[in-house]
């Protein structure tokens, strides 16, 4: 799938299954994508569509829960992350792939100073001395725009506001110059003005550091402003993958189209009535044997119920997994 040059991250056929008391939940089903150097890949989809689980499966963060991760390969930096030892994987976490989580309020350990938490990966992965790590931590905080960085190192997370905490999380993820940064809904919990600050910061950093970013969100507005390519997930699968402008201009999958129509906007035209996607997202007690969106789809026809559509390319870097062609309104 990688076109220009080597992808930094190449995921093929990733599957994740949770064992629960009610039965196995197939949270991620045969997900494949790649990430090119310096690119920002947006991931959208409603709650429970498997966005977080996909990303955490990549680097074994589901470790202690009863999850089985399987797949063809997850190539990163010359290794297959699905087949390395726990120690090697740990070396990748933080150093090769940075992670920023959704909730800045709970993602930092409340009883350690921000400085300690920032310096931890530095000492761990880069073998820095405390003094070097401290120096670097100050730089990092300045990088993410926290004033008076030197002093704030000895503050505790609760002394920071939500936005600042999220900046600390970002600084922490950036600390070891990872090749890939995975940001799991980093702004969902924040106010719009703070979100704007963070988005601005990310744009700037990306420019400066040139790493590849995966940005998970369910806010299409955020995606529109920041992503290069967008990946739409539904029911643990990628239903559409396209460059951002292409996706907004020419959405192919009925789910993407519906998604784009449900959100009102502060500018633009104001619809008298909002469009809704009827029905509920599926709970995946088995791997899909039919299109998982078919139950809610306006265009579903018999084939959708008989087989799970494969991902096909419909244009320049534009993939979709659907039997229905919006151009013609007919099955493909």
């Amino acid at each position, binding site marked *: 799938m990688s076109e220009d040059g080597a992808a930094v991250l190449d995921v093929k056929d990733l599957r994740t299954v949770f064992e629960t008391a009610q039965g196995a939940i197939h949270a991620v089903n045969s997900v494949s994508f790649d990430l090119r150097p310096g690119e920002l890949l947006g991931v959208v989809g*409603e*709650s429970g569509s498997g966005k977080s689980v996909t990303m955490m499966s990549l680097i074994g963060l589901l470790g202690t829960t009863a999850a089985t991760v399987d797949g063809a390969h997850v190539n990163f930096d010359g290794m297959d992350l699905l087949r390395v030892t726990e120690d090697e994987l740990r070396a990748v976490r933080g150093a090769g792939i940075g992670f920023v989580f959704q909730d800045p309020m709970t993602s930092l350990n409340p009883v350690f100073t921000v400085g300690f938490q920032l310096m931890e990966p530095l000492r761990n992965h880069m073998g820095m001395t405390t003094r070097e790590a401290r120096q670097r931590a100050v730089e990092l905080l300045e990088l993410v725009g926290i004033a008076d960085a030197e002093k704030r190192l000895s503050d505790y997370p609760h002394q920071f*506001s*939500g*936005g*600042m905490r999220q900046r600390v999380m970002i600084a922490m993820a950036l600390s070891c110059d990872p090749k890939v940064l995975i940001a799991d809904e980093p702004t969902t919990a924040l*106010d*719009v*003005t*703070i*979100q*704007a*600050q963070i*988005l*601005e910061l990310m744009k700037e950093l990306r420019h400066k550091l040139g790493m590849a970013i995966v940005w998970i969100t*369910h*806010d*299409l*507005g*955020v*995606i*529109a*402003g920041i*992503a290069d390519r967008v990946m739409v997930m539904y029911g643990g699968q990628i239903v559409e993958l396209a460059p*951002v*402008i292409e996706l*907004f201009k020419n959405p192919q999958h009925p789910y993407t189209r*519906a*998604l*784009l129509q*449900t*959100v*009102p*906007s*502060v*500018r*633009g*035209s*104001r*619809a*008298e*009535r*909002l*469009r*809704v*996607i009827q029905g*509920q997202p599926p709970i995946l007690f088995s791997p899909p044997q039919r299109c998982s969106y078919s139950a809610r789809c306006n265009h579903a026809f018999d084939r959708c119920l008989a087989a799970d559509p494969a991902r096909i390319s419909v244009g320049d870097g534009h993939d979709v997994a659907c039997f229905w062609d919006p151009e013609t309104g007919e099955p493909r």
Partner: protein
Amino acid sequence: MSDAGASPLVQVRGLKMHFPIYAGIFRRHVGDIKAVDDISLDIRESETLGLVGESGCGKSTAGRAVLRLYDITGGSITVDGTDISDIDKEKLRHLRPKMQMIFQDPQASLNPRMTVAGIIGEPLVEHMSLSRAERLERVYELMDAVGLNRSFANRYPHEFSGGQRQRIGIARALALHPKFIVCDEPIAALDVSIQAQVVNLLEDLQEQFGLTYLFISHDLSMVRHIADRVAVMYLGKIVELAPRDELYGAPLHPYTQALLSAVPEPDPVRESQRKHIILTGDVPSPSNAPVGCNFCTRCPRAEQICHEIEPEFRQVDKGRYTACHFVGDTAIKTAEPTVGETVKP
């Protein structure tokens, strides 16, 4: 402040809600969290007033204070002609049917140990003397009205999805035929695809029952969709109040402008061309508000005067109110509803 036309159903004047802070060895009263600090607004019959602002600016407190769920610190509230600002508990109880509330978190606002019928029926038990059967009938009607299957009546909240739970909350609020409903971020906890369902439902019900809403949200796009007029709050005060299209079209207060600018556009082309106003810094604590204009610490236009004198909340145009030194009578740009044209599907 009342505008011409329909007389307001709810009239709030100088509402203050301060939470005291005690400190020191003897727990002395050393200050207040001024969660709501002197706000005034009218809500007309059958309209929706949107109340927006950042987290912690006092929206919920204002909403609850208006319903007298708190003992307010100052000001007056009149609902449907009755002044409820310091009415006694029992009288207030009898006024409750008129004014109801829908809550932010549908999970948290439903008692996990009561059945749906119990939850929706609770107001009926409190205020109407209905027989068991009559009550059940009314519960069923309400469930129909909000689009819940009657067979769900004996289930518990945790057996429902978020959208369905919010419908239960709405049904409970509707049970007593209220005139006025405070919706405290009714969609914030819901998934995007479900938000729309709930908003549509609220609109339908308004039409059907002639309801009046105070719609609290921090989702500016949703407020734009549902509200007739919008009030913007910042740190316990209303900084701007205007009819919807005027506000979104031509925001007057620098905070409103920044707020609107911060909302990303779900359109990559336009988003890339748009100019952003990025505010710096964080919202000050409501227990320690700045001198002068509340917004002066973050305002891109702040000048000396802003740090000294608190701007007055005044009418600057027909139906438009704002609290900023720089938006004088002279500085009014006439609102042009050019950007925000209404499109009917």
